[in-house]
């Protein structure tokens, strides 16, 4: 076990063991995390909502459960939830003005499962408005800073979740990933982020951006932590018709086989995801990481081609905005959230509510999606994009007949300067080039640390076939155990 001076610096798995042995209490651990928040939050600004009193109260309850012997590996562990997941009685804003004072009367299934497991929720994490963005700069409330370099973005859209875990302001977080929104900020902030197979984690209570792509997943300090979180939040949910029925009464312990190594695993490197457009330090670090897999006994094919993945981003920017344009139609100021209160007709009220309530990136995507679905354009855009989606799925299915894991960088670049890409949406969209294909295909992928450059972390991106989370976590864990990158912590 790694020596730590402060409790908040521990990984979840370390803390879990100490809690079980009653060497520490959840109140002590939670207090340490709160103290850390008080120390660094003004610099990181990862939170949209913090409730210290409730956190301590939950920690006390967790301690009671532990004393009573009725606990799980996550009982008493403090963490945060991305602010697009509903929790009864807790403000849920999606980092949007349009939901500024929205307090849902229901709790997302994934969050409920965490609460049932005894996890302690400290607050809600900042994000790009409605999860649309790759830098968390699209939050209507404030930007979040990368703990490794406060001038840099933490990535997005789950930038708050990743920055908080990286900065020690929480031991874990839940994020959501539509095109890379967990993995890209995890890479930028030097933590582990995973997007599970579509349907593995219930979306009930997750405020939709693009329903066919959105998936809740863990943000953790380590691969083991991510597996522990996935154990809790995964599973069939009758409230979400797209959650996988095959998981009913069929729980997997993702930690059980995590240490069985990669010997004999077949790993493929997707060549389309490397090249000039990937920064050299990223290219180098990922290449070295692949060699590391060879050293650990995996066989590597360095030249795997999935030609359609090149079109994943184009398809994504049709499909996601199309669904978003429909998903966001409900925010009209009539029922909840921000409502324009000027003089005017019902239609003027709705127009002004949306005009003022939504930020510019959200509006841009609503326009895009509305256009793509319009009569006369549907076939050329939405339908074409669906065809590309089918093509990409098929290519992945074919590839996973030959390989266990496919490798790419998580992001083509290092974390960039705050404000450097806000005026160039296309440049911003490119951040998700490597992560989008997994969402399009509905398959799992994980990002973990594989190097540093200029003091900034670099992410290794492993992609698996549908429901191959165990294998994916095993590969990631093997790499993590064989390297030291994950032991570095940012100095804030």
């Amino acid at each position, binding site marked *: 076990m790694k020596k730590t001076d402060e409790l908040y610096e521990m990984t979840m798995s370390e803390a879990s063991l100490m809690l079980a042995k009653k060497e520490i209490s959840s109140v002590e651990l939670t207090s340490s995390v709160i103290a850390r928040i008080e120390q660094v939050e003004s610099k990181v600004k990862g939170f949209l909502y913090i409730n210290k009193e409730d956190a301590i109260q939950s920690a006390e309850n967790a301690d009671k459960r532990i004393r009573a012997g009725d606990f799980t590996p996550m009982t008493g562990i403090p963490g945060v939830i991305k602010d697009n997941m509903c929790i009864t009685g807790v403000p849920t804003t999606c980092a949007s003005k349009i939901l500024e004072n929205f307090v849902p009367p229901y709790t997302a299934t994934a969050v409920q499962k965490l609460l049932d497991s005894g996890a302690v929720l400290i607050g809600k994490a900042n994000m790009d408005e409605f999860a649309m963005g790759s830098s968390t700069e699209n939050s209507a409330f404030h930007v979040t800073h990368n703990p490794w370099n406060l001038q840099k973005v933490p990535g997005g859209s789950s930038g708050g979740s990743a920055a908080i875990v990286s900065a020690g302001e929480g031991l874990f977080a839940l994020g959501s990933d539509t095109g890379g929104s967990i993995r890209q900020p995890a890479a930028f902030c030097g933590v582990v982020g995973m997007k599970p197979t579509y349907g593995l984690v219930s979306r009930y209570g997750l405020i939709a951006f693009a329903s066919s792509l959105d998936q809740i997943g863990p943000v953790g300090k380590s691969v083991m932590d991510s597996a522990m979180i996935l154990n809790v939040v995964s599973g069939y949910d009758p409230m979400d*018709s797209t959650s996988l029925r095959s998981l009913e009464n069929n729980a997997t312990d993702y930690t059980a086989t995590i240490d069985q190594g990669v010997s004999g695993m077949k790993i493929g490197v997707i060549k389309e995801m490397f090249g000039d457009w990937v920064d050299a330090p990223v290219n180098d670090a990922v290449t070295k990481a692949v060699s590391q897999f060879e050293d650990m006994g995996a066989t590597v094919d360095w030249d795997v081609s999935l030609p359609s993945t090149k079109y994943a981003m184009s398809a994504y920017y049709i499909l996601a905005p199309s669904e978003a344009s429909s998903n966001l*139609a409900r925010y009209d100021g009539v029922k909840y959230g921000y409502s324009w209160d000027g003089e005017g007709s019902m239609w003027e009220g709705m127009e002004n509510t949306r005009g003022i309530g939504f930020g510019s990136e959200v509006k841009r995507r609503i326009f895009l999606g509305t256009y793509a679905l319009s009569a006369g354009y549907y076939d050329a855009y939405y339908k074409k994009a669906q065809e590309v989606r089918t093509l990409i799925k098929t290519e992945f299915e074919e590839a996973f007949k030959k390989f266990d894991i496919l490798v790419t960088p998580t992001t083509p670049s290092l974390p960039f300067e705050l404000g450097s890409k806000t005026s160039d949406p296309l440049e911003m969209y490119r951040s998700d080039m490597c992560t989008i294909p997994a969402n399009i295909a509905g398959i799992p992928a994980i990002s973990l640390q594989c190097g540093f450059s200029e003091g900034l972390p670099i992410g290794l991106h492993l992609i698996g076939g549908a429901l191959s989370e165990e294998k994916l976590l095993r590969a990631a864990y093997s790499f993590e155990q064989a390297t030291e990158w994950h032991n570095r912590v940012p100095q804030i």
Partner: protein
Amino acid sequence: MTSTAKLEPVIGLEVHVQLLTNSKMFCSCKAAYTGAEPNTHVCPVCLGMPGTLPVINKKAIELTVMTALALNCSIATNSKFDRKNYPYPDLMKGYQISQFDLPITNKGWLSIEPENSGPREIGITRVHLEEDTARLIHRIDVTGDTYSLVDINRSGVPLMEIVGEPDLKSAEEARLYLTKLHTILQYLGVSTGNMDEGSFRCDANISLREKGDPLPNWKVEIKNMNSFRAVFRALEFEIERQTNLFKNNESIVQETRGWSEETGQTVSQRTKEYAHDYRYFPEPDLPPLFVEKKWVQSIESNLPELPDARRDRFIQEYNLPAYDASILTSGIETANYFEEAISGTNLKNGRLSDRAKTTANWIIGDLAHLLNNSGANIEESPIKPDHLCELLDLMDEGKISVRMAKEIFEEMYTDAKKPSLIVKERGLLQINDEEQLKSMVLEIINANPKAVEDYKKGKSNAVGFLVGQLMKETKGQANPKTANGLVKSALDQVG
């Protein structure tokens, strides 16, 4: 000037039916909201709150499949739900979950029997499933400003849409189609079919063409018709309006018109500022709908007897005239009433078919008349089928006469009493005792020498007069047949 002699209306009906499920289409709220306080049958899902997701109500699929089978439609093994996007405050999510290009069922037909042309099959384009919207209630405040209230109880109630082919040629055919469809739904038990409460709604598309021409490429949509009669009247009005436009060589605009019950006219509804583009796309929150063939087969084998089959059976089994059978089976309650009234009989004299015809006569005649006068449905009838049966048994046994039965029937209707009880209370039993009647007959003959004279002269109505006197004497309780025989034989003896 165009000749209008060869003009023919082209009419297609779209019917929306709320399904009789326990819960709503995509959540567990109670679907039956009639009489409920506004906004009490709601939950995060049917309120369309952020992050909530729909879950398909299997019962709604089953009822739709039932309906489709009854309408001779084919059932699609693979179908899907789509989002129909349009902003309106009655739409909680800003889109309605409906079915666009792959509905659950396709292509069927329903037969109607117009008096002038004989039976015709009217095509059904499709039957699909969607969710109902919330209800807007428009009000005017004290200052005269208008405002609207939203009642979300209706939001998410399962709504089945039955789209008919433009095969109907008159307002009367449209009425027959609607009535038939309504009856079928009632037999299936899939909907209350209540038009006043909006659980059965009809929109009509109508255009005119010259006989033999292809379908016109325009149509006028008529909305806001809240009864079968309104549909009939609106179509009659619209046919005349369009015919006049034709006559004067004026063009007919494709538009939506609202029916006004007060003025008896259709009125052009304010044209939308922009044409509706619903931007349909597959509902990503629901996986494609797979309807197993086996399940469809089991639904089919459990389909209840439908109106046409029941009518044919009534003709076969009870030897009823087609007219009676049609009327009796045009509503499931009436058909059930008839069969209940007939099943309990202790028929001693006569044949079942005769009793069936008598029962039909009483239901179609006297009972319908009384119900009509008090504006009641047959299921609200104070006279229950077993009581009618008992009454007819009393007649059959000769205990009461037809005239007595009619009197008793009226009392049964007002007091909801068993006929045997009324007979007992009023001492109304028919006098069949010949000895008792004979002495009375002799007294009457003695008291009416003129009638006896007339009889001798061959005036046969003298018998009737004397029987009438006997009936008067017995307060109508004498068995008319017996009385008639006794009077005749007494007269012959006197003569």
